[in-house]
């Protein structure tokens, strides 16, 4: 009975919302035009990167803070020591060893490409994190226990750098308003810091969680 009711409600929701979407008129504000008009002053030529790190840099700053807070909360609720890594087949280990340098290279390329084509700090960080997860899954990289000083610095460096630059640039009038001449360099510096930290944070979301693997037996 409950299944039927939920099914009917979900169908009604899809029909009503879908109908509303089909009938939707043109948007009242044209953000596309505003972005295109200001793109030259943003320091990068790819509109998504310009929005992420220049026009809406505040959102990105807070997003990294959200990631850090989620990681802290995960550290607070997992208390078991890291499980001993289980080595995978030697062939898998060899493939992972070979793939890791290539993935680091791809991450650096994505970071650099973000200025003028799809790419950027988040994609580069995700590739770095994927490399770490790959190494962990084949047993070459143990799960992380309580983070040491170096790991803590690495996890927070991107956010700290972003925040420090935001504070230093407050004299420009608004938060994260870059001087147009230096905007490209500043965005690249922020993105480089974010790439390292996001790679570590995203890897940490997996590697800190995998440390209580031994608790299942």
């Amino acid at each position: 009975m409950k299944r039927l009711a939920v099914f009917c409600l979900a169908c009604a929701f899809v029909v009503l919302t879908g109908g509303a979407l089909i009938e939707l008129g043109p948007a009242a504000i044209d953000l596309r035009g505003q972005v295109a008009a200001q793109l030259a002053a943003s320091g990068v030529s790819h509109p998504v990167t310009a929005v992420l790190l220049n026009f809406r840099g505040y959102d990105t700053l807070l997003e990294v803070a959200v990631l850090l807070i989620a990681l802290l909360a995960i550290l607070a609720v997992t208390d078991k020591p890291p499980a001993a890594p289980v080595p995978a087949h030697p062939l898998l280990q060899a493939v992972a060893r070979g793939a890791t340098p290539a993935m680091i290279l791809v991450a650096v390329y994505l970071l650099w490409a973000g200025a003028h084509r799809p790419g950027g700090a988040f994609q580069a960080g995700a590739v770095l994190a994927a490399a770490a997860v790959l190494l962990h899954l084949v047993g070459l990289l143990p799960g992380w226990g309580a983070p040491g000083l170096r790991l803590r610095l690495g996890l927070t460096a991107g956010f700290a750098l972003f925040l420090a630059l935001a504070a230093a640039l407050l004299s420009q009038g608004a938060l994260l308003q870059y001087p147009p001449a230096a905007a490209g360099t500043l965005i690249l510096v922020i993105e480089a810091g974010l790439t390292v930290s996001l790679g570590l944070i995203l890897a940490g979301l997996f590697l800190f969680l995998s440390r209580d693997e031994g608790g299942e037996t």
Partner: protein
Amino acid sequence: MTSGLLFALVGVALFALGLAGLVLIGDVLRRILAFNLMGSGAFLVLVGLAQRNGVPDAVPQAMVLTGIVVAVAATALALALARRLDAQREGALPEDEDG
């Protein structure tokens, strides 16, 4: 109908599917998956609607990129909480003292 509008309509269907799953399913892990499905549907609506007349819009794309990363963090946190919940339920049984 443009492809952008089609993406938005698929997004609505995914959202409804996830919502129904969230209501009907009892298992925590599958509820987290259903919640992610809802999020993916919302992202698809945002990106699809913004380009329904053929030209992509960078602002919703950037916001969705932000949203995806936050969704990953929220999922990881939910998984950590689910794991802790599981461990505590096991710990409540007397024979699982060494677990």
